C-alpha cells in the first residue's frame, strides 16, 4: 500500500467517527434556546445548589407552590390551596388530585414528606438542607448527634419518667456515647433507680428487663414515626392529598421556600429501588412532575426539555421544546446570540458593556447579590473595629462602579441589597471620608499609617476582581498611607485559604437564597460556616436568633444593644393591642424586620467584619420578540419591582413562531 492512500483514509475515518456522534434528537432546533452558563452538577433537587441547576429543575419539577413568572409571588403549584394557623407556624396544604409523575402515578403528600426528610438526612449530603431548618425538628435531624438523640432519647426519657429524676447533661453526653441501659441507669441521680441495679439478682433482672422493654417500645415508636411519617420532622402526610407542616417559628417567606428546589417532591417509586439513589435523574431513568420532561442530556452539548404530557396544566405551557446550552465561554455565547442560534444569554463579556448596553435587546437591573471583602478579625491590627472602619471610609466605591463595572452597579454602603419589600436598611455613614478614616486610624495608634503592617487582599483569579483589588489597594494607600498587596489564587486554593483563615482581606460575593434580609445576615453569627472572619458578637447573635423566633422575642423582649429601642417597643405594643391575629402577625413581621435592621446596623456601623463594596447588576441579552420573560415585576398594587433574584421560569417563556 502506498502511504498516500493511508493518509487519504484518515479524513474519511475521521468524518465517519464524527458522524456517529451526531444525535438525531438534536437535529431539529428547539422552540427556545438559551445559554445556561455551565453544565449542571446534578439534576437531583435535593443535592443541587446552583443557578444553572435551578433553571432546569424548576422546569422538570413542581413544588407545593410556584413563583408566578410575572410577579414572582407564590402561586398554587401541586398544592391547590392551603391554610395557615393564626400564629403562622402550621400550614395545611391540600394537594390537587390531577398532579402526575411522568410515569403516570399521582403526586402525593407522601412524596413531599419523603423528599423533605431525605434532604435533612446527613448521609444524603444535601447542602441546602438549612433552607428548610425552620421546619420543626429539621435541624436536629440534619445534625448527627441530634439523630442519635432521636433514637436514644426514649431510653433516657424512660429512665427519667420512671425515676422522676434528671441526668446532668455532661454525664448524659458520656452515656450517649456508650448507649447502654445499665450505664444510663447508673448515671441517673435518682437513688431509687440506682438501687434497682443493686437489688438482688432476680429483682434486678426484672427491673432492667422492664426498663429495657419500655425503652425499646419507645425507641421503636420513635424510629417508626421517623421512617414512615417523618414525624421527627414537622412534616406529615395525613393522607395522600394533605400535607401538614409545622414550623419552629413563623417564617414570613415560607411559601417562597416551598417553591424553591430543595422543597420539591421526589419520585419515591424510583428512589426506593436500590441502586437508583445516585443516578435516578439521568435521561434513561428520570421521573419528574413539572411542566417539562428531560428529553435528552448530552454533557458538554445541551439539555433538551420537552413539554410533559402528564403535567396537570400543560395547556398553559407555550414552548414544546427548550434547549439549554452549558456554554461557559461568554464570547462564544455572545457570538451564538448575534448569529441567531440562541435566544437568551444571561451573561456576556464585560469589556463589551459600553457597546451592548445601547442595544434594544439588552437588559440590566438590580440583582440580589452583594460584592464585599471579608476582614480577618483574628489578625491584629484588623481585630480593632476602628481600623476596620477606617478601611471602609477610605474606599471610593463610586470610582469602582464607574471605572471598572460601568453597568449602573450601586455602591454598597450596607450589606443587604435594596429592594426587599418592607425592609429599610440601617442608615450608615460608610461613604468616602478620608479625613475621618485617618482620624480613626490615628486613634487606633497608626497616625498617617505609620507602623501599620503590610496587608494583603486575596481574590480568586478573574480580571474584574483584579482591577477592583488594585483600585482599592491604591485608594487605601493614598488615603491612609498604608501598604496593601493584592494577590490571587485559583478558585479551589482561594476557598481553602479563606476557610483556614489565612488571609487579611478577602474578596467574596453572596447571592441571596430567598427574598429576605436574613439570607445575608445569618451568615455572620458566631462560628457560622460562611462567616470565616473570626468575628463574634453576642448581641448580634441574639438579634438573629430573636428574628428567627419573633413570637419568643415578643414574650421575652430585650432592649440592650439596640440603637432604636423606641421603634421595637412601639411595634411590640402595637402587636399586643392588635384587634385580630392577622393584625398581630403583620406587626410581628414588621418587628422581625426591625430586629434584622438592628443586626445589620451592628454589622455595618459598629463592627465591620466585612467591607461592602457594591450591589450587582444582572444583565444579558434576550430577543425582543420573546414573550413571558420578565425583567420588571408588576405587583398587584401596580408597583413595579426589578427581578432581583433573576428568576425566569421556563414555564412562561416562548418565542412566537416567526412569520
Amino acid at each position, binding site marked *: 500500500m502506498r*502511504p498516500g492512500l493511508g*493518509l487519504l483514509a*484518515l*479524513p474519511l*475515518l*475521521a*468524518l*465517519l*467517527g*464524527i458522524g*456517529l*456522534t*451526531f*444525535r438525531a434528537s*438534536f*437535529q431539529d432546533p428547539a422552540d427556545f434556546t438559551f445559554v445556561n452558563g455551565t*453544565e449542571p*452538577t*446534578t*439534576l*437531583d433537587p435535593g443535592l443541587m*445548589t446552583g443557578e444553572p441547576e435551578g433553571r432546569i429543575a424548576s422546569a422538570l419539577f413542581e413544588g407545593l407552590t410556584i413563583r408566578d413568572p410575572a410577579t414572582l409571588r407564590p402561586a398554587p403549584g401541586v398544592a391547590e390551596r392551603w391554610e395557615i394557623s393564626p400564629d403562622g407556624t402550621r400550614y395545611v396544604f391540600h394537594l390537587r388530585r390531577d398532579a402526575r409523575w411522568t410515569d403516570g402515578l399521582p403526586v402525593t403528600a407522601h412524596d413531599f414528606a419523603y423528599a423533605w426528610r431525605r434532604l435533612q438526612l*446527613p*448521609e*444524603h*449530603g444535601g*447542602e441546602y*438542607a438549612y433552607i428548610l431548618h425552620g421546619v420543626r425538628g429539621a435541624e436536629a435531624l440534619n*445534625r*448527627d448527634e441530634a439523630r442519635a438523640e432521636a433514637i436514644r432519647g426514649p431510653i433516657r426519657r424512660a429512665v427519667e419518667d420512671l425515676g422522676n429524676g434528671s441526668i446532668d447533661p455532661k454525664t448524659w453526653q458520656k452515656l450517649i456515647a456508650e448507649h447502654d441501659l445499665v450505664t444510663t441507669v447508673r448515671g441517673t441521680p435518682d437513688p431509687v433507680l440506682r438501687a434497682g441495679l443493686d437489688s438482688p439478682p432476680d429483682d434486678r433482672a426484672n427491673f432492667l428487663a422492664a426498663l429495657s422493654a419500655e425503652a425499646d417500645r419507645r425507641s421503636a415508636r420513635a424510629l417508626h414515626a421517623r421512617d414512615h411519617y417523618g414525624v421527627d420532622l414537622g412534616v406529615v402526610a395525613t393522607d395522600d392529598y394533605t400535607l401538614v407542616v409545622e414550623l419552629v417559628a413563623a417564617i414570613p417567606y415560607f411559601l417562597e421556600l416551598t417553591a424553591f428546589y430543595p422543597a420539591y417532591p421526589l419520585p419515591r417509586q424510583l428512589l426506593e429501588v436500590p441502586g437508583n439513589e*445516585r*443516578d435516578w*435523574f*439521568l435521561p434513561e431513568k428520570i421521573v419528574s412532575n413539572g411542566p417539562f420532561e428531560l428529553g435528552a442530556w*448530552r*454533557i*458538554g*452539548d445541551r439539555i433538551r426539555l420537552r413539554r410533559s404530557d402528564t403535567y396537570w396544566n400543560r395547556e398553559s405551557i407555550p414552548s414544546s421544546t427548550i434547549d439549554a*446550552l452549558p*456554554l*461557559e*465561554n461568554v*464570547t*462564544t455565547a455572545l*457570538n*451564538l446570540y*448575534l*448569529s441567531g*442560534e440562541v435566544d437568551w444569554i444571561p451573561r456576556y463579556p464585560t469589556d463589551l458593556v459600553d457597546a451592548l448596553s445601547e442595544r434594544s435587546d439588552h437588559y440590566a437591573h438590580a440583582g440580589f447579590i452583594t460584592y464585599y471583602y471579608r476582614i480577618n478579625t483574628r489578625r491584629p491590627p484588623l481585630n480593632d473595629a476602628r481600623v476596620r472602619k477606617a478601611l471602609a471610609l477610605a474606599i471610593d466605591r463610586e470610582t469602582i462602579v464607574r471605572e471598572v463595572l460601568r453597568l449602573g452597579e450601586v455602591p454598597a454602603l450596607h450589606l443587604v441589597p435594596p429592594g426587599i419589600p418592607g425592609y429599610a436598611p440601617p442608615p450608615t455613614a460608610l461613604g468616602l471620608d478620608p479625613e475621618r478614616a485617618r482620624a480613626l486610624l490615628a486613634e487606633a495608634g497608626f497616625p498617617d499609617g505609620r507602623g501599620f503592617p503590610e496587608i494583603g487582599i486575596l481574590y480568586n483569579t478573574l480580571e474584574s476582581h483584579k482591577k477592583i483589588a488594585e483600585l482599592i489597594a491604591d485608594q487605601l494607600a493614598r488615603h491612609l498611607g498604608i501598604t496593601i498587596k493584592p494577590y490571587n*489564587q485559583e*478558585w*479551589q*486554593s482561594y*476557598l*481553602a*485559604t479563606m476557610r483556614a483563615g489565612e488571609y487579611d482581606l478577602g474578596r467574596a*460575593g453572596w447571592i441571596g437564597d430567598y427574598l429576605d434580609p436574613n439570607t445575608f445576615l445569618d451568615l455572620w453569627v458566631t462560628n457560622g*460556616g*460562611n462567616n*470565616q472572619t473570626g468575628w463574634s458578637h453576642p448581641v448580634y447573635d441574639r438579634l438573629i436568633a430573636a428574628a428567627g423566633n419573633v413570637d419568643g422575642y415578643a414574650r421575652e423582649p430585650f432592649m440592650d444593644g439596640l440603637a432604636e429601642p423606641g421603634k421595637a417597643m412601639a411595634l411590640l405594643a402595637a402587636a399586643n393591642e392588635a384587634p385580630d391575629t392577622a393584625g398581630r402577625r403583620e406587626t410581628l413581621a414588621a418587628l422581625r424586620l426591625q430586629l434584622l435592621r438592628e443586626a445589620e446596623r451592628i454589622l455595618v456601623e459598629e463592627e465591620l467584619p466585612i467591607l461592602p463594596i457594591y450591589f450587582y447588576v444582572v444583565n444579558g441579552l434576550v430577543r425582543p420578540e420573546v414573550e413571558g420573560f420578565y425583567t420588571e415585576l408588576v405587583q398587584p398594587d401596580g408597583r413595579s419591582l426589578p427581578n432581583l433574584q433573576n428568576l425566569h421560569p421556563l414555564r412562561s417563556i416562548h418565542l412566537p413562531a416567526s412569520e
Partner: protein
Amino acid sequence: MIPSLLLLIGVTTWLMYMAPGNPFAQEKAIAPQVEAALRAQYGVPETPLAFFRVYMERLLVDGSLGPALKVQGRSVQDLLLPALPVSLGLGGLALFLAVAIGVVLGVSAGTRPNSWADHASMGLALVGISLPNFVIGAGLMILLALWLDWLPVAGWGGFRHVWMPALTLALPHAATIARLARTGTLEVMQEDWIRTARAKGLSEARVVSRHALRVAVLPVVSYLGPAAAGILTGSFVVETLFGIPGMGQWFVKGAINRDYGVVLGTALFYCGLITFFNLAVDLALAWLDPRAREAS
C-alpha cells in the same frame, strides 16, 4: 508498562492531594457531617494512600474508573467515552489537514529555496506558529461565520460544525510540519541519488514525488507521534471556544474542580495514547526508511 502505570497513578494521586482544596469544597461552606457523608459515598478518603488503595481496588476488581465527583450520577468512563469519538474524529481530521497543508507548503518551499513561494509559505508558517489558537479560532469565527455566514459560529450537530474547529486545531501543527518538510526536502535534494534520478532523465515532479518525498517527510513522521496524541485528546481552548463536547474539557475541568477521578482517568488515557503513537511512529519510520530497516 504496569509499573509505569502504577507510578503514574501514585504520583498523580499524591499531587492531587497536595493541591489545596478538595472535590467537595465550594463557595457556600458545607457542614462537616455532610462532607464526611460525601467522602464515604464517593470513595474519597482523607489521605492519598487510602485513596490509592480504593482506586486500585475499583480499577482491578470492577474495571471501573470510579464515579465523577462534579458531574453527579455518572462514572468517569461515562464522561470520557462519549467524548472520545468527538475528539478522535475532530483530531483525525485536523491531523490530515495539518499534514496536507504542511507537506504541500513545505515541499514546494524546499524544492525552490529562496524563491517567493519559499518566503511566502515560511512567512505563513511563522504566523501559524506564533498565533495562539484562541486567536486563530476567533479570527476564523469572525471571518467565516459572522461576516461570510458560511459556517455556524459554534456547537455540535452536523458536518457544518466540524470545519472551523478542525482548521483551528490544524493550523499551528501545519506550520510546524511545513518547516520540518522544507528542511527535510532541502537536505534530500542535495543527495547523490537524487542527482542520479535526474540524470536518468526523470521529470522534476517525478523525482520529488517518487524519490525525494519519502525521505523528506521522515522528520514530519517523527513529529507526528506526540502531535497526534496532543491533537486527538482534544484541546480545551478549541472545545470551549466552539462549544464542542470533546475530551479536552475534562483535562482542565478535572483539575479545576479537583475531580480526582476525572484527573486520573484523563491522565491514564493520555498516557495510553502517547505510548501507542510512539510505537506506531517507530514502526512507520522503519517501514519508510530503508536505512533504519537494515540497521534493525
